[in-house]
């Protein structure tokens, strides 16, 4: 009897431990940035904030809607990318493709609960939208290497960024990136009207 109690205790503690690992509480901190500031964040039809948004949201809420005048509304699906469940992944063969690249139309998660939402401007073509989207994503994910290249006055990452911005890779373009970077004290990289805020700074 004692042994059985001990075994049940071990098993219960193991599985309860696993549950904690998998669920991590009933709320999750969700951070949402978007290409336009002050876009409304809506949950079940009610506005709960504006971008840049950082708040705890009860788990089980699968979708948030991001709205801004002059832009198409975007519904952000949270369930696809938050906390890929460890053993669940194994049994179902894991996530498909990259774990940080959950492109769901116009949003991606560059951290399991941090989202960059790119809203379509009304009337904007898909190609222009995708180019803009890729540029911002590249800047966010490679900010250290871009900073190193700015210090070295050139380099592969800076060249790639400038190429994605469809600018010629020359001193003028490097100076353009550097000037905007310095004006914002290293908080932003800016191309024309496109602003990439680095690390929510």
């Amino acid at each position: 009897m004692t042994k059985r109690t001990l075994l049940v205790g071990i098993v219960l503690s193991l599985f309860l431990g696993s549950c904690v690992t998998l669920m991590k509480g009933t709320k999750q901190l969700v951070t949402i940035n978007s290409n336009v500031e002050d876009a409304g964040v809506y949950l079940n039809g009610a506005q709960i904030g504006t971008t840049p948004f950082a708040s705890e949201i009860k788990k089980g809420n699968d979708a948030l809607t991001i709205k801004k005048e002059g832009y198409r509304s975007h519904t952000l699906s949270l369930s696809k990318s938050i906390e890929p469940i460890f053993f669940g992944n194994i049994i179902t063969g894991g996530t498909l493709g990259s774990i940080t690249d959950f492109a769901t139309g116009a949003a991606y998660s560059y951290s399991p609960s941090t989202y960059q939402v790119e809203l379509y401007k009304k009337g904007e073509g898909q190609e222009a939208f995708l180019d803009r989207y890729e540029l911002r994503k590249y800047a966010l994910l490679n900010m250290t290497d871009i900073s190193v290249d700015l210090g070295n006055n050139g380099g592969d990452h800076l060249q790639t960024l400038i190429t994605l911005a469809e600018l010629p890779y020359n001193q003028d373009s490097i100076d353009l990136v550097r000037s905007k970077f310095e004006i914002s004290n290293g908080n932003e990289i800016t191309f024309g009207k496109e602003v990439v805020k680095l690390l929510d700074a």
Partner: protein
Amino acid sequence: MSQSYLRWVLVLISTFFLFSYPLQAQNIVANQQSSSIDETLDSDFKQLYLVFAGPYPASPSSAFGHLFLLVEPKGSNTSNPQLWRAINFSANVEGHSGISTLYNGLIGSLEGSFEHLPFYKKIRDYSYAEARDLWLFPIELTPKEKNRFANFINSRQDSTSQYRFSDKNCATYISESLHYTFDEPFNNKVFVLPQDILSSDFLKQRLSTPLWIQDIEEQLGELVSKYELNNVSNPELDSLDATEKVHFLKTYEWLYNNKSVRFNADKKEFIRQLRYDIAQQETDYEFNQLESKEFNIHHPARIGINYFYGNNSSNKLLIDTRLGLHSFGDKANTYPKYDHINVFRVRTMVSTSEVMMDEFWIFHQSSRQPKSELNSPLSWSLGLGGDRFLYEGQSLMALGLYSAVGNTYSILDDYWSSSVMLSVNPTYLEKHTWSLIVNPKVENRFFISEKVKGSIEVSNPIFLQSNELFKPKLQLKGIYSITDNIYFKSEVEWHYNQVRILGGINFNISL
């Protein structure tokens, strides 16, 4: 074998076919949108590479690794590998749920196509997001062959092909394109695996020593260890030189983007200052540099022939067969050192009077990242199959689900690690009934040299219906690798005052 035993084998095999995706899958990658790439390939390119993305044990679907092609162009972008053209064959899983993908991938109802995308996207996916090494093998081509390759790729634009995990996967279509390039006849096989393509006769004479991009987690892990040793994990900005600032900023960036680590306002300000300072001064530090490195990988199938000696003077032949992946005994620099995946493993004891199954796995995976690694995760293992246990002194097969969690500590760098694991295994015990086996264990693994390694394991299997609580089991293993595909193995086990000794030779063979 009893009828009930056979029945449970059947149940397990059926279960496998329901969840078989992990076992046969190549690295299935959702088709990405190409951007900034003209999809027509000019034959006047500088160099073609065959790229092997190392296995990704965290996801069995990627456990065999992945193959794609990389074209280094002539012209202004040629010195920047980030802008080289990656040509990737991937399945289109848009609109499929996970289960639907499993089923359709298994029966071959998915479609796949070639996509063209800049190489930085593949670096981001593999090196950053999934902590996988990339190996770039230069392929020697004549101008005529470059032309044939471009023609093949261009002819596949806007067309789709059948995708099936086992034989119509990334490796299949990459192999087909290279056969066409070399004007060699192409015959598909029942199983097509990336490591077999890399070592195939038609290709290996054309491949040079690969360039290597080490996964970012490994690179950062080395940095973090260095700074922790020097007690500079909370540095003053002014005390850091330019290279150290890059190291810290790169680490913070990775923790934020890949590990969801949150920073407070002070830390964010510190990061901003680091970033700003770096942009003001020259540094010579660069991540993901391409460097040449020798590559070794073993063949996917294995057969082992061992002599077995038991306590009661029994002499047996022990035959060990495996299809797939990687285990502790194998030698390869492409698999993470502490991660092991076995599939379709059967170990059978043969004597003059009987044939007895000793181990049987449909699937068994373990991941044990040592604690000294950056943000090291939990050690764990998961298996579906059976192992042989001594139950009240009697040797019985226990078939079922084997799961374990614990931690692994690095005691001496890469040379010695110690794992503490607790395993809980709901199983069907041969000749009895269902049983829960709880098995705490401590295992030390020693990597003495590239060729020699060993382990010492102490465990204590406890059966739910038994009154015996303390019955420790000691197991010693020694491995000596002769080549990438041949190794000697010896094993000594002591349990219930019974001793098992085995030793033999194992061969990894191509399919």
